[in-house]
Structure formats: structure tokens, C-alpha cells
């Protein structure tokens, strides 16, 4: 089956006063129809920049895609002219952001903001668009959608705002939904509601979801496959069961074992020593080598490639590549 969206060897760089640095360095992944792909990593690993690159929303002047391809239904989104991109963005590929307060316009009513996108993309009349907007609000579980449509973003709670964002993103039946930390700003009980809603909408519409998050619990509950990123690169890719059962990359292993668990007893947490390297000063070899407990000399000199371990499980580690037991 052809994937709906395929990112190939994406390189995105930023020009800063400190120099040019690559935020995303050779990232590849794909999403099938109706599938949820998790992109996991800690702050600064390039996961959000990847999603902005796909949407063509990189900050102008300082950010640019240097090379790579973003295949969407046979065409490369990087070659698509801006005018055509506008008809794809928000229509066939939609996005939910982390902070719903900053991504909704504070001076327009909820209904008007929703109807604007609908009117534009679905070529509907104002009245019909408004009716559709209210229908979407009802679909995402907002009580009294008619009156909420007349309210301003500040009158809603965080959970309600995120529902509005989802309604907006889903209003044109997108094929791909990019959700960038959609529940990070929310409380757990509200998070549970939002995740349920996303799953339900996906089942109904067969949407492909690219779920960007740092929360491995959310990944385990939502995703079919997972891509783990570290310092701008994919370090491991696997289906969700394999990733949690037999993670191969030392970083993935470290992440999983450093989590405090809700079940069972822990006297001590495992931890990964050190911090993420600065993008302006990347280690020459494996980027995780300075923090890795299995590192050998070669790790500090050679950049490991992604080793295919069969069944869609890939891992970027020299020791895995060479078949060395750890």
C-alpha cells in the first residue's frame, strides 16, 4: 500500500547569529492511511521543525529546507507553488498545535474562525459554512455548540479550546492530521477526553495522524508505529509493540527506563547522564555517543547509519550495525 505521506531525507537548517545549523538532518518516515505514527523525542530534537517543514510553515528568512522530499499523493510538497500549497494546507493536511490559546485569534468569535477555513476550502456560502462549523463543534463534543460559536477564545477553558482546534483541523476532512503535542498543556483527565476524541475521529474518517509528542505514555496508547528522534536524526523506528518490548537504541532504552512508573515499585530511577548536544556543536560520530554507556571508540568517529532489522524495525547504532552484543 502506498503511504499517504512520505518524508525522505529531509534536511532543514536555520541561519542564526551563531552560524548555520541543521535542526533536521536526513529524516525519513512515512504514514499510511488510517495509521497513527508517533514522533517522539525531547526538546530540541527537531520533531516540531519536521512538522513545520511538512506544512511549509518554517519561519521565513531564518529557516529553510535544504534538501529532501515530502511526498504527498505522488507530488513533492517542496516543489508545489505557494498558491497550490494553500489549497492543501488546512484542507488536505491539517495541524493541531500545542497551545490552543496562541493558535486561535483572540479577537474573532470561535464560529467565525472555524467558518473562515470551511468557506475557503470547501467553497461554501457563509451561512452554510457557519452551519458546518457548528456541526463540527458538536462532533468534537462541545456542549451548546450554537452559543459557543458566538464566544471568544478567552471565554473557553483549555480543554474546550483544544476541542475547537481539533474541530478546525478536522473540518475539511483532511487526509493527514499533524498533531504537535496536542495534549501537553492539558490536565490528565482532559487529556484522556481529547485522546479518545482523536481516536474516534480517526476511526470515522480514516485520517492518518502524525502525533508529535515527548510523552511515551501517550505514544503507547495512541500510535501504531513510532519514530524516535535525537539531535535532528531518527535513531529508531518500529511498530509500537516492538519499540516498547525490545528497544534497540541505547537512547530509546534509556528513555524508557528513566520513566517513573505508575505500576510497580522503584527505589531508584535510571537516568541518561549529560544533556542533548548543542546543534552548533554536534559530536562528529554518533550524536548520542557522549551520553551512551555502551560507547566504544569507533562511536566517537563514525556516524552510524540506520540498520534495517526486519519487520520495519530500524535503528541507528554502530553496535547494532556490527551485531555486537551489549
Amino acid at each position: 500500500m502506498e503511504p499517504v505521506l512520505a518524508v525522505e531525507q529531509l534536511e532543514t537548517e536555520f541561519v542564526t547569529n551563531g552560524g548555520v545549523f541543521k535542526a533536521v538532518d536526513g529524516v525519513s518516515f512515512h504514514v499510511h492511511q488510517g495509521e497513527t505514527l508517533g514522533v517522539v523525542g525531547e526538546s530540541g530534537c527537531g520533531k516540531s521543525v519536521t512538522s513545520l517543514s511538512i506544512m511549509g510553515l518554517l519561519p521565513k528568512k531564518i529557516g529553510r529546507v535544504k534538501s529532501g522530499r515530502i511526498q504527498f499523493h505522488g507530488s513533492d510538497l517542496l516543489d508545489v507553488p505557494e498558491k497550490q500549497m494553500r489549497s492543501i494546507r488546512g484542507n488536505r493536511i491539517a495541524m493541531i498545535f500545542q497551545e490552543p490559546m496562541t493558535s486561535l485569534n483572540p479577537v474573532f468569535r470561535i464560529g467565525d474562525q472555524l467558518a473562515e477555513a470551511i468557506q475557503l476550502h470547501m467553497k461554501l456560502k457563509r451561512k452554510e459554512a457557519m452551519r458546518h462549523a457548528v456541526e463540527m463543534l458538536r462532533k468534537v463534543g462541545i456542549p451548546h455548540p450554537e452559543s459557543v460559536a458566538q464566544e471568544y477564545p478567552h471565554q473557553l477553558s483549555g480543554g474546550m479550546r483544544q476541542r475547537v482546534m481539533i474541530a478546525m483541523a478536522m473540518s475539511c476532512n483532511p487526509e493527514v492530521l499533524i498533531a504537535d503535542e496536542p495534549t501537553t498543556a492539558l490536565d490528565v483527565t482532559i487529556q484522556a477526553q481529547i485522546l479518545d476524541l482523536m481516536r474516534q475521529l480517526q476511526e470515522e474518517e480514516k485520517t492518518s495522524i502524525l502525533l508529535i509528542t515527548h510523552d511515551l505514555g501517550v505514544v503507547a496508547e495512541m500510535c501504531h508505529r513510532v519514530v524516535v528522534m535525537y539531535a535532528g536524526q531518527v535513531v529508531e523506528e518500529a511498530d509500537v509493540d516492538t519499540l516498547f518490548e525490545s528497544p534497540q537504541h541505547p537512547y530509546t532504552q534509556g528513555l524508557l527506563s528513566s520513566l517513573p512508573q505508575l505500576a510497580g515499585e522503584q527505589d531508584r530511577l535510571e537516568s541518561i547522564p549529560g544533556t542533548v548536544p548543542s546543534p552548533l556543536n554536534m559530536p562528529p560520530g554518533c550524536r548520542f555517543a557522549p551520553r551512551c554507556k555502551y560507547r566504544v571508540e569507533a562511536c566517537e568517529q563514525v556516524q552510524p547509519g540506520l540498520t534495517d532489522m526486519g519487520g520495519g524495525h530500524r535503528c541507528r547504532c554502530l553496535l547494532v550495525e556490527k551485531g555486537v552484543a551489549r
Partner: protein
Amino acid sequence: MTALLQVRNLKKHYPIRQGLLNKQVGSVKSVDGLNFDIYEGETFGIVGESGCGKSTTGRSVLRLIEPTEGEVWFQGRNLMELSSKELRLLRPDMSMIFQDPYASLNPRWTVQRILEEPLQTHQSLRTSERKQHVQELMERVGLSSFQANRFPHEFSGGQRQRVGIARALALNPKFIVCDEPVSALDVSIQSQVLNLMQDLQEQSKLTYMFISHDLSVVKFLCTRVGVMYLGKMVELAPKRKLYANPLHPYTKALMSAVPVPNPKAKKERIVLTGEVPSAKNPPQGCAFHLRCPIATEHCRSVQPEWREADEEHWVACHNL
């Protein structure tokens, strides 16, 4: 076990003023009648969702904000009755670690100066002694002493939180209120800081009050845990009892809502409908009845009593 801190009927109400004459038209009951003890050497956890009053509780206990009502007994003295002078003499014994290491450190000060400030205020040391003390502090929290002349922006998030912890430790306190100390940090850094806090507690016999929204983190670090909802405590128990056998329907829902990092874990999730009501006009009766799956008519009108359902296991619910 002796109680280091006893909180009795603690309340913090913020007035809502309106109109030309600034008349008080109501109040936000952020914290509404809390009772609990914190034992010496333990880590007392407070969990709850945003707006439940957990941070207000932390600050009220230290009198960083003035509570409206209630008593806080610390080492046999009621903090609420102390004058500011008397309170200042007690300050070295209690301190605080804040959530956001970006906002709680002065960006124009070097780490040396940040860590020196409490020493200058409360102790009369010579410059060289102070310098020595700062170096020791930095090494205790896992920073190198040569970093003392750097500014906060030169540190990563995790290191900055270490500076925050060092500042809290500067005067050898007995009691530290930790308000979401790791929630701004990445997982791999979070575990480093949690382990550090555990080590420091063992070394210096510290007592923590640990405020967090993350049930897994609280479970790792705390000995006893209180669950707050809308300004009130709904359940309080030793960690093992609370996590193995939560009694209050809110605690149960909260625990079932936490995503577990195991795709094979099958669990019954209790999805709560609706949202936390506003503390401006909390519902009559039990504060939780609007979202409670087992609420009855009784819950709508009568506030449940705070009672000991099992040894050391306190809960406020009619339907047990």
C-alpha cells in the same frame, strides 16, 4: 513519627471586587479548609489538576502568601501568629524550589551571587567563607564549582533547576516546598533531578512537600500523598495504600487517565465528563459531584466529611 508541620483548617480566599466602589462581590476559594500533618524526614506529595489549589497551599504554608484563615504549626510554633521579624528568624529552616528554573533565577546575576544572597541575608560570613560555601553547594547538586561565574542563560534546563535546588539548600533547611520542580524538564533530565533530590534528602534528613500534577513522579518520590480537587483535599494516604487501593472516585479517575507507557497494558479507563468547575462558585455539596460517576442526591446537597476510612487513609466521600 513526629510531625514537623501541622496544617489546620488552612484557607486562602481571594476577594472578587467589582464596580465603582470596588465592593467585594464574592471570593475565589483557592484553598478551602485543609488539614494534614507532614512527618519529619518524609516526602509529602500533593497532586491535583491545574487550579485545584496545590501551589497556593504550598505558598500559604510558608506564608509566602498570607492565608485567610487557619494554623500552620512548624516546630511547635504557629507560623500564622509570628511577626515578620520572628518569621524571618525561622526562614532558614524552610525553603522552596520553584517550577520554572527560567523564571525563578535572576538573569542578570551570576550563579555565585544567586547562591550567595541567602547567606548574606541570614549569616555573617567572610567573603572567602561564602565563596567556599557556594562551591560546596554547587558540588552537592552536581555542578562544577568553576561554573559559579556563569549566568543562568548559560545553563541547560536541568542544570538551572540544580541551581534552584542549591539555592534552596543554602541555609541547610529542614523543610523544603517543591512546587512542580521537574515538570519543565525532559524525561531523561527529570530522572537525574529526581534522583538528586532523593540523595539530598538522605544526606541531609530533609522533609519535602512535593507538589505535582504527575502521579507517576509523585509515586516515585513520596511517602504519603494527598489528592486535591477544587481547593479541598479529597483523599490522603500512604503511597502504597493510595496507589493500590484508591477510594475516592476522583482519585480512581485520575489514576486511570494517566497514559501508561506500555501498549499491551489493558485498562479500564474512567473518562470523566465535563471539567473542573470554577472556584469562584464551587458547587453545593461535594465539590466533585458534577463529574462523579457515582454521585447521589445526597452528594448534591451535603458536603462529605473528612474521615479516616482505614488506618492512615483519609477520604472525603459519602459513597464508600
